């Protein structure tokens, strides 16, 4: 069974998805402030890595990377509602690129599985994916 990453078209599809997803984030006043001082070139690569990961493509992101990478944003007030916004825009982006509802649900689940890492908190005991 192929991954969504492969079915969407691999790397070139991810490059397009990054543009679509990142534009949604910048235009959304609920999360735009977290990108205020971001170097857009570095963002491009990070978003590509994130989208690759959540669509089941090859990646080497660890929980530790997600924690360390978002720590400064958590300090600025990043919380569950913002993660929800990300998952919302992720879904809309993938839908625009032709992903099916089942795929989108799977991606949302993958994104949710790193929620505690992103927000730098302990997972509830017993909870695992």
């Amino acid at each position, binding site marked *: 069974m192929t991954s969504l990453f492969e079915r969407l078209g691999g790397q070139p599809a991810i*490059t397009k998805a990054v543009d679509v997803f990142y534009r949604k984030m910048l235009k959304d006043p609920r999360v735009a402030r977290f990108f205020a001082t971001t170097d857009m070139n570095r963002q491009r690569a990070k978003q590509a*890595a994130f989208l690759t990961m959540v669509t089941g493509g*090859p990646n080497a992101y660890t929980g530790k990377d997600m924690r360390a990478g978002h720590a400064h944003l958590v300090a600025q007030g990043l919380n569950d509602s913002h993660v929800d916004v990300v998952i919302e825009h992720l879904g809309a982006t993938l839908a625009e690129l032709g992903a099916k509802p089942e795929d989108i649900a799977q991606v949302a689940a993958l994104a949710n599985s790193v929620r505690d890492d992103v927000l730098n908190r302990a997972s509830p005991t017993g909870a695992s994916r």
Partner: protein
Amino acid sequence: MTQVRFDTTDVDVGERESVLDALLRAGADVPYSCRSGVCQSCCLRAVEGTPPSAAQVGLPPTLAALGHFLACVAHPKDDLVCVRPGALAGAVDATIRERESLAADVVRVRLTPSAPFDVKAGQYVNLARPDGLVRSYSIANLADTDGYLELHVRVIERGAMSQWIATDATPGTTVSLRGPAGSCVYVPGTPDEPLLLAGSGTGLAPLLGIARDALRHGHRGPIHVVHGGRTAGALYGADELARLAHSHSNVVVTRCVLEGPTSDGVVQGGLDGVIAARFADLTGWRVYLCGNPDLVRTLQQDTFLAGASLDAIHADAFLTRADAPAASS
């Protein structure tokens, strides 16, 4: 068997190995993360040899044109000599052959390097004066055909380098150049692509270089140059821009000032406002942004939101010493 050199490491790349595999095996210090050609941590630049284009997927075309590639997915056919992406080539002496005022506070300097100095229009060089003080300046011309490098220097009131250039650096003075650096370069291959070249102050220098390079390659698509300044006195290069627009029907020039009176051919408005008003949809455009850092950052975001693809937006923020971040832990 291809050979790859990086820093002091010289290694043969095995049949099934990537450049990254080989370099790590030989003990080289190359950053990496995903090992799948996605995160771009392992990006290197080939200064000798042509890297495989398959290892350039995902990089903007400007970086690909300058020899950048992703080591973790590179299986080279050519021998390669690689450096870190930001590395500057060794110093070359250059002599100032001409120095001319272009405006009250802008000096044009033309330099002849003492040895071949490979630089593309729109890139920049680190210029060191005899006592070692170093500043970066962009290349405004086609150095390979002109035989000299042209820089536009804004003379700042307490600018150590710019004051020296304006007063002491007479023709015949020797300086040292390192570089080139930067990736705001024209990429041949899409001659009908619309280009937006926008900049403030001496940000015009690299934009002029890029426009000239585009036209030299027979670029057919529209080339919109937008030059902004705080006041009319901050704008220079009117004649040169008019010349380009006059001899090439696809060149359109807009000049704007934030404050004060406008004149023939100059409109009122800040660079970002003027661009937002005139370029509502930049889908499919290639955008080059040079000059004031805050303006460049704003324009990067604005042009992206207007539809330009992230890998079609190329920015060069002109930092001055005053912009250097304070030392932090």
